[in-house]
């Protein structure tokens, strides 16, 4: 494979962004043209990533499509490559981005050109995170994402957008700079930041603990884990719909991906040592944030807190270090990416029409929006983890993994599912059912053609992987085996 397909997939959206930047002309013309360019770039990128998936060799556990160029002389080589774990995140990114673009075209009313540029820029940076096989390159993409996200929240956000944008930026930056110290320390200790080489060069055990904590500070904030989650509800609530979707669906997954790719593989001893800490924080996250979610009167905030709880399952799954646990965590991340994206889009649909995110502003929506209610219901059930949705597969496997480690953790975290049923169904009941109390809801329109298609796509994927998750398992099974094998050989 000589064609640098990974770099192409990564930088193609950037090319699209540059094209949009260059578009001039009359206002109506250039809006139309930039929309077309954005749609073309993101959809083609999705097709390319599907092509990548079909060409991916399931029977090979190492990194594939590896590209390496000399980059920072004496320090770092520019290295890209994927294994079964990263490819599913690339697929998730390229799948969600066109949806964000459609949603943006549908609902963003001003400065659409800049909006599209930022979303495409974001896509490049996110794919880059999942492709990089070098710590410095990873850091570059990981941090670079802050700039477009800051602008997305700040320009198109709600009332408290400035506060939220700053909080998001500074929180994540603080975590990340500690990771940068750790990355440089690794370079000085081993003389390399190449992940493949680092897997063979063992990092001295006494250093592992500090390094693990430095990486943890970054990933735990990004993930976010309790008690570092406070930026998330603010950012989610104030961000525009497309921004919330990117945040929930992809940015949060960078934390989990980081734990799997770096924390466990590079610092196995420290990971074992700190696993109890992770279990404790995750269980607290699951129970506490679920309870908090129950009490929210803002729909976006409710979903944001539920994200924290769902991410709790992911961290438990990863640090059980069992095949079921890690695979469950991966499926959970993927399915949460799709379901939470869907839920945020559903809230966005209501918000676009009535400009309120409060649950109390709505009731009896089903009478006027039957299609909407159907999609919203499937996504709600997915968030609860009902069998038949992808949410179930992930949570079930995580619990199986947790049960092997400790019954207590499994039991405590299962309560999260019950609580999830509580807050999600209650939300659904209050918004969709009941009689119409608010008279200006009477003229509310059902989904338009854009909304119809992207919600349909998300629901279809949720159901498909709920019934038939096998393609995913086949993709990452060997890579997960490899990961656990390396962990056990520490």
């Amino acid at each position, binding site marked *: 494979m000589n064609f640098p397909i990974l770099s192409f997939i990564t930088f193609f959206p950037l090319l699209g962004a540059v094209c949009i930047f260059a578009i001039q002309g009359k206002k109506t013309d250039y809006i139309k043209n930039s929309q077309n360019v954005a749609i073309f770039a993101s959809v083609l990128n999705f097709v390319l990533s599907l092509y990548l998936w079909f060409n991916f060799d399931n029977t090979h556990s190492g990194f594939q499509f590896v590209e390496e160029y000399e980059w*920072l002389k004496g320090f770092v080589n520019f290295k890209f490559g994927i294994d079964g774990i990263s490819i599913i995140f690339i697929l998730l990114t390229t799948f969600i981005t066109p949806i964000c673009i459609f949603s943006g075209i549908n609902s963003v009313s001003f400065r659409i050109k800049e909006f599209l540029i930022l979303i495409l820029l974001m896509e490049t940076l996110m794919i880059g995170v999942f492709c990089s096989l070098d710590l410095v390159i990873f850091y570059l993409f990981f941090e670079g994402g802050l700039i477009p996200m800051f602008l997305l929240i700040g320009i198109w956000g709600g009332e408290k957008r400035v506060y939220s*944008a*700053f909080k998001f930026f500074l929180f994540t930056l603080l975590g990340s700079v*500690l990771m940068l*110290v750790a990355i*440089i*320390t690794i370079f000085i200790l081993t003389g390399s930041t190449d992940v493949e080489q680092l897997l063979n060069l063992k990092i001295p055990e006494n250093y592992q603990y500090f390094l693990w904590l430095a990486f943890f500070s970054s990933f735990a904030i990004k993930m976010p884990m309790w008690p570092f989650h406070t930026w998330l509800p603010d950012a989610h609530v104030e961000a525009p719909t497309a921004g919330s979707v990117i945040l929930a669906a992809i940015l949060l997954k960078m934390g989990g991906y980081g734990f799997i790719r770096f924390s466990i593989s590079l610092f196995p001893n420290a990971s074992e040592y700190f696993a109890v800490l992770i279990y404790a924080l995750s269980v607290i996250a699951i129970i506490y944030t679920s309870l908090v979610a129950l009490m929210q009167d803002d729909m976006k905030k409710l979903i944001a807190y539920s994200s924290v709880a769902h991410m709790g399952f992911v961290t438990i799954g990863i640090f059980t270090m069992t095949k079921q646990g890690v695979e469950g965590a991966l499926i959970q991340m993927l399915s949460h990416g799709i379901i939470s994206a869907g839920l945020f889009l559903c809230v966005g649909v209501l918000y676009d029409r009535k400009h309120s995110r409060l649950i109390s502003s709505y009731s009896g929506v089903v009478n006027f929006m039957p299609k909407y209610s159907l999609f919203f219901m499937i996504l709600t059930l997915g968030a609860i983890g009902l069998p038949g949705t992808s949410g179930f597969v992930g949570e079930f496997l995580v619990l199986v993994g947790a049960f092997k480690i400790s019954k207590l953790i499994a039991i405590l975290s299962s309560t999260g599912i019950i609580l999830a049923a509580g807050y999600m169904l209650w939300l659904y009941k209050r918004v969709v059912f009941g009689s119409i109390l608010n008279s200006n809801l009477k003229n509310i329109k059902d989904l338009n053609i854009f909304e119809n298609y992207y919600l349909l796509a998300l629901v279809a994927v949720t159901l498909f992987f709920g019934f038939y998750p096998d393609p995913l398992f086949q993709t990452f099974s060997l890579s997960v085996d490899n990961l656990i094998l390396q962990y056990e050989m520490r």
Partner: protein
Amino acid sequence: MNIIATIIPEIFLSISIMILLIFGVFIKESFNIVYKSSIVVLIFAVLLLVNNFENFSQIFNDSYLIDNLSNYIKTLSIISAIVVLLISYEYINSLKINKFEYPILIISSLLGAMIMISANDLIVFYMGLELQSLPLYVLASIDRENERSTEAGLKYFVLSALSSGLLLYGCSLIYGFTGSTNFQLIAQNFNSNNLGLIFGIVFIIVGLGFKISVVPFHMWTPDVYEGSPTSVTVFFALVPKIAAMTVFIRFTNVAFAGIFDQWQLILIFLSVGSMILGAVAAIGQDNIKRLMAYSSIGHMGYALAGILTGTIEGTKSTIIYLTIYAVMNTGMFACIFFMKRKEKYVENIKDLSGLSKTNPLLAVGFLIMLFSLAGIPPLAGFFAKFYIFVAVLESKLYLLAVIGLVTTVVSAFYYLRIVKIIYFDESKISFQNVKNLPLKFVLLTSSLIILLYFVYPSILIDMTSSISLG
């Protein structure tokens, strides 16, 4: 003959200064022609310098040193001076400070800086320093109708004279205790148990600390930055700092190399102090020039962190930092030169509000510069900090690295504040349309350098690879 060949750029500049001066005095309305020929002179000087790169030679009884370091920094300084002249032409005209002395003073100061950079002897160094500083006093107060400009000039003069006095006192102590003014001989005769010498070092560090404005010798910076005409502020931010930093490298790595332990701790305090003050004090500033003053204090703290490791990697990282710092500051000030409304230049950051709607391209320029100054990847500012922290961590200065990175986060706050004003706030009246081709060219070039630096970041490593400290 050989001696003259090695310092041709300096000789060329001296002669040009005199010719331009005579020309300016005898011909009326000579500003335009002197200004333009100054730019041509500087371009010639760069060409002469680049064509005469000598790897190593010591001339004038070993008191003047030409090596890769001096060549590199001199090129950087001359290019900075050219850029300063390019971007400030319109500014000077509209402020009516279009006197023919202005470009000549800039070249004289540059010449002083070049002598400082090449100095291998305390006396030569001091001469260069004074030649560099004297024109700056005049330049700071060149807008003499303006109270603040006069104040800036006077303040800079008084404080700078004081620091020069301290420097000279330090030099005399060192000469007294080592019996030589030559850097290498000082290093040979150094006896680290001698208290007088330590005092000498402290005085020299204080004097140089003043010139590069690190905490606690930074007090003059905000006032002078704010009071001086912006075109002079750019020059302040670039050439004198780069030159003084190079002298710092010479002192710490050649003259005082043997007593590393004695000065390292002092420099760590200066560096940490500057990082913290640069991050915290800038938060409350509303004047963009004042804010840039604090930002430059912080940046000098980072640059110093490279030097204080005492390793060649550290020194190189400082040189790389200075280069990227110069590009970022050029870009930032180029943006500031666009802040013109009704034929008046404005400086308050509130004036930028909603710039992204009224002038989206300029807003993108600001955005790139601000995020780069904050050190966010993938912009060039990140790589500058990255090299510094690699050097710092290699020397096992973990605390310094962590403080440095945490202050990065704090300083990100005030850069973000400007981004917020530009992008999130409601728009005001737009700035007037500036039709200034050189200014646009400089802004475009510096933005592209900052933005695309990540494509091939080895470039500065390549350029600095041949630098050694002898």
